[in-house]
């Protein structure tokens, strides 16, 4: 797997995410810790979609469904008095894995535009399920009275503690994805994306590999959903609405499909834009659109491609010298 942008890029990102909250505290801009937390959660979520889309070639237009399920499991668990966060995560992971298995097993029998449509349709089914779930708030959503407990003497009830928890989750997610992409599974998945017929002809049961990737992405999204529930202390069906899935796809496209940090960068840029523009202008979505258009025109393969431009140019020259 190619190393994405420059080698120091990840280290710079990590330092940034360690330094920024400290800076915010010192300068008294504590509000931004919440913004950063949200960014990290979406970075985790978008990374899971990037894994599915960029490496597995599956354009899921319903990825937010797992985000919502993870969030709802967390809220419902809190509603019933569960206070152990590890148990909550286990439940969130199990529920999103099950949903991923069901949706994946159905949707992966179709291809291309049908896959996009069926993932969206199935996700909407879950959306209406939660809308109709009166006991847990239905359309109005459900409050979470207080965050569950992490244990080990660590406090995640405050903004700071929670931020470090989320950063740890994002780091763990990226490490896991890096490991997966370098594994035999990752190589096979890559081969299946490029040429499924041939992958089958050399003995791979491609459907099972794609389903495994789908479930892995679903679990990561479910855990990110659990975190967003704990962050907002509130969940609503909006979390899994199809438009949320659409925004996720935009994030990944913006960051760079198939670039390792594509999901992270996309979520950061998108949410930063939203944050800045929505505080200064009324119809901020229009301006987000304009910026997106500009990015697509300057860097059609996303922000990541800009950051490693030198490398891709080199590759182009190599290709030319071989007469391609």
């Amino acid at each position, binding site marked *: 797997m190619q190393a994405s942008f420059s080698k120091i890029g990840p280290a710079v990102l990590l330092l940034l995410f360690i330094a920024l909250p400290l800076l915010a505290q010192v300068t008294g801009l504590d509000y931004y810790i919440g913004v950063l937390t949200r960014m990290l959660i979406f970075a985790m979520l978008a990374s899971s979609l990037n894994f599915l889309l960029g490496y597995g070639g599956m354009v899921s237009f319903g990825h937010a469904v797992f985000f919502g399920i993870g969030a709802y499991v967390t809220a419902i668990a809190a509603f019933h008095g569960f206070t152990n966060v590890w148990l909550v995560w286990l439940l969130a992971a199990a529920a999103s894995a099950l949903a991923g298995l069901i949706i994946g097993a159905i949707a992966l029998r179709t291809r291309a535009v049908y896959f996009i449509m069926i993932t969206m349709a199935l996700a909407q089914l879950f959306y209406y399920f939660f809308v109709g779930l009166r006991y847990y708030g239905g359309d109005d959503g459900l409050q979470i009275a207080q965050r569950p407990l992490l244990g080990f003497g660590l406090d995640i009830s405050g903004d700071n503690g929670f931020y470090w928890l989320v950063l740890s989750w994002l780091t763990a997610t990226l490490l896991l994805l890096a*490991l*997966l992409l*370098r*594994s*035999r*599974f*990752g*190589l*096979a998945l*890559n*081969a299946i994306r*490029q*040429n499924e*017929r*041939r*992958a*089958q*002809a*050399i*003995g*791979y*049961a491609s459907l099972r*590999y794609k389903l*495994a990737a789908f479930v892995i992405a679903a679990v990561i999204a479910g855990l990110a959903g659990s975190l967003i529930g704990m962050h907002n202390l509130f969940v609503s069906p909006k979390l899994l609405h199809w438009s949320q899935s659409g925004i996720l796809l935009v994030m990944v496209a913006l960051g760079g499909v198939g670039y390792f940090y594509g999901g992270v960068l996309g979520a950061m840029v998108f949410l930063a834009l939203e944050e800045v523009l929505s505080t200064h202008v009324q119809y901020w979505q229009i301006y987000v659109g304009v910026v997106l258009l500009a990015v697509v025109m300057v860097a059609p393969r996303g922000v990541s491609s800009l950051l490693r431009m030198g490398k891709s140019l080199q590759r182009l020259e*190599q*290709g030319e010298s*071989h007469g*391609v």
Partner: protein
Amino acid sequence: MASDALTVRALQKNYGGLCATRDVHLSIDAGHVHAIIGPNGAGKTTLLSLLSGALAADGGEIFLFGQALHGQAEQVRVAAGLVRSFQITSVFDELTVLDNLLVAVQRGLHRGYGFLHASASDRRGREQALILAQRIGLGQQVRQLASQLSHGARRRLDVGLAIACAPRVLLMDEPMAGMGHEESADMIALIESLKTELTVVLVEHDMDAVFALADRITVLVQGAVLASGTVAQIRANAEVRQAYLGEEDMQETV
């Protein structure tokens, strides 16, 4: 039957009213190169797809060294040792030559998905992939992307992917397609070298190659077997001459 590598009985495939494969019986001896020839549209590629499991047959039986494979999924057939190569080059363009071969080698070498086993640190797999790269004449190009290779090199990689699966019977779909004279000679030499360790079913249009390599020939016309026999028998067969080879060609090659 006992020495048969591949036995096919009453294989059938229909597309609506069109009969693409009609009651095909084959018995292919172990260690042979068995050529399947026939005019365009005779159903040669369809036959290979039915054998490999890429297409589901409407009827008939397939045995690989006595093991029933009809109705089995493609990956089961590959694991049993029935592997195909492609007429239209089918490789993994964005992978290096080494990774192309590695992904094929690893399927047979390991069980399970290998979620957390780094593919690059699979020594045995890499070793086998490198040996194979040498064998198909790509030893110097293992770090190149498949998309950067020449046509002939890509054809060899296509065959290499199939060999990487350790087949007992290799189904080759026009390995010489679109090749120049020299490239064809390389491919013929490669197939010759395979003969000692496995059985080859060779679909090929290049008659020089067929006559040079084949131990047996089956002629397919409109999805059905017209004739099957040794090279000499096929050359002498009047029906075959009329249906396919054409008088002129025969005089040239005989």
